[in-house]
């Protein structure tokens, strides 16, 4: 009896995992297409338009190309770590999707199926842990390449992530003080009932956003792969699909951090000005997913928009911004939030 229940549960979760992994891969694939298209549009160009209508098949062609290219493992590299690097980058990128609530419960086969792989009560901490692991992929890969440019790229990536994770964490603490929970699902539920967190934490969101750019190694913080100084940065020695994994994991990371931002600050799968409880559960889950994806696409567009607007920071500027502006700002934000919460608790109306 117990086994039977567990089996259905396992199947349900397995299906969900497969869907989430596949979906994030496909979205990352089309994020590359979107990036090229948006870059082209912002620069008055056409962008890829040869493979299929509007170049829709371009990412497929790119993927195929990467698969068919010669796979080179340099003689002087440490082979095990060389392969471990991109695998880890990819693994951690995909793992983050596990705690994200993609929608509310749906009702199928007399079962309430939650559209979240695992509702961990420390969800956001899990995300942080996994994202921080992601830099190991870059570091291991760059070190194993045994190439000075790679190593420089890896070092930059590591120091950058350490510097910005602090500000990101502190900006998040302010948010957590308001919500009082670490579970992403509960955060969404709170925002469905009240206002979106962006209205309570505009400064927090800004800091979080900047740090997310840095964590994803996106321009203006893409020092780890600064082409004109470091050739390819940490993936200089990589070719074929191992390079593909690195590039791909960057896009998955971008997607995941967009989802996280949408969930934390923009109400996740909440549809604005609509009380979801009044309508059919399954339809609302679908529309909620669409709402979430719309928010995510807007945020991804923001990522790309910024990339094609702002030039790369110099290394000292990057560190200055991280340590001397963002962290004090995040601390300030945290203190103000704390003070306001205290004032509110002691019933001091103003």
């Amino acid at each position, binding site marked *: 009896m117990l086994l039977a229940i567990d089996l259905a549960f396992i199947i349900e979760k397995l299906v969900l995992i497969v869907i989430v992994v596949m979906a994030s891969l496909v979205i990352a694939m089309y994020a590359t297409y979107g990036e090229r298209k948006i870059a082209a549009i*912002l620069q008055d160009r*056409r962008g890829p338009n040869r493979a299929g209508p509007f170049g829709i098949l371009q990412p497929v062609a790119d993927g195929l190309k990467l698969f068919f290219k010669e796979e080179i493992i340099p003689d002087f590299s440490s082979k095990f770590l060389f392969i471990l690097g991109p695998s880890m980058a990819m693994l951690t990128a995909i793992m983050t999707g596990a705690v994200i609530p993609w929608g509310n419960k749906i009702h199928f086969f007399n079962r309430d199926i939650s559209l979240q792989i695992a509702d961990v009560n420390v969800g956001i901490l899990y995300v942080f842990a996994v994202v921080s692991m992601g830099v190991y992929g870059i570091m291991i890969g760059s070190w194993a390449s045994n190439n000075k440019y790679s190593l420089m790229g890896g070092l930059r990536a590591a120091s950058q992530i350490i510097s910005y994770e602090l500000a990101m964490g502190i900006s998040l603490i302010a948010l957590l003080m308001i919500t009082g929970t670490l579970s992403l699902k509960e955060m969404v539920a709170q925002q469905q009932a009240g206002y979106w967190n962006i209205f309570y934490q505009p400064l927090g969101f800004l800091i979080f956003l900047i740090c997310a750019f840095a964590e994803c190694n996106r321009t203006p913080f893409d020092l780890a792969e600064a082409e004109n100084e470091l050739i390819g940065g940490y993936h200089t020695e990589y070719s074929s699909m191992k390079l593909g994994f690195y590039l791909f994991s960057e896009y998955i990371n971008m997607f995941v951090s967009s989802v996280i931002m949408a969930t934390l600050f923009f109400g996740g799968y909440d549809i604005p000005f609509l009380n979801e409880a009044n309508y059919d559960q399954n339809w609302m889950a679908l529309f909620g997913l669409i709402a979430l994806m719309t928010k995510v696409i807007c945020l991804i567009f923001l990522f790309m*928009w910024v990339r*094609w*607007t702002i030039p790369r920071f110099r290394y000292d500027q990057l560190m200055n911004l991280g340590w001397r502006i963002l962290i004090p700002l995040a601390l300030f934000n945290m203190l103000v939030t704390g003070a306001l919460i205290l004032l509110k608790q002691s019933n001091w109306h103003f």
Partner: protein
Amino acid sequence: MQALTNRLKEVDRRKMNFLERLYLISIFKGMMITFSHIFKKKPTIDYPEKTRPFSPVFRGLHILNRDEAGRENCTACGLCAVACPAEAITMEAAERQANEENLYREEKYAAKYEINMLRCIFCGLCEEACPKDAIYLSETVPPADYQRKQFIYKKEELLIPHPIENFEAYKKALGNRVKKETDNFKI
């Protein structure tokens, strides 16, 4: 120092204030600029589907012209080969036989006529040198190829389509340029 032009711009070296040091305003301004480019007209021409019109003086691939009855104009006089600064043209003359009046306009014709397109500089001097209205530079570009020998264009490749048998192709190969020139020639 006196300025040579009135384009001199004084560099503002004042210390940035707090708002400026945040860079947020300038970043926002920059993003608005890039955003405005979404709505700009794109100057790209989708090449194989659409082509840019050539200028009226464009000199492209050569054609060997025929007269209205479809007879070849060229008499293999060799003036074009002499005029050619790149020495790209070679030819061999032959005498017209009794039953070939419908093929060649005059008693002598070019049995072999070759232009090396890799040597040719498309200057159009052959066109100017030709007394028989036989060679023209058309409005097409020599296509790419894999081998050098493919670029030595034989008479078959250069000859314009027959005006009676295949009028459409003849008209197309003739282009605007030749028509104008022949009019001048006739006058």
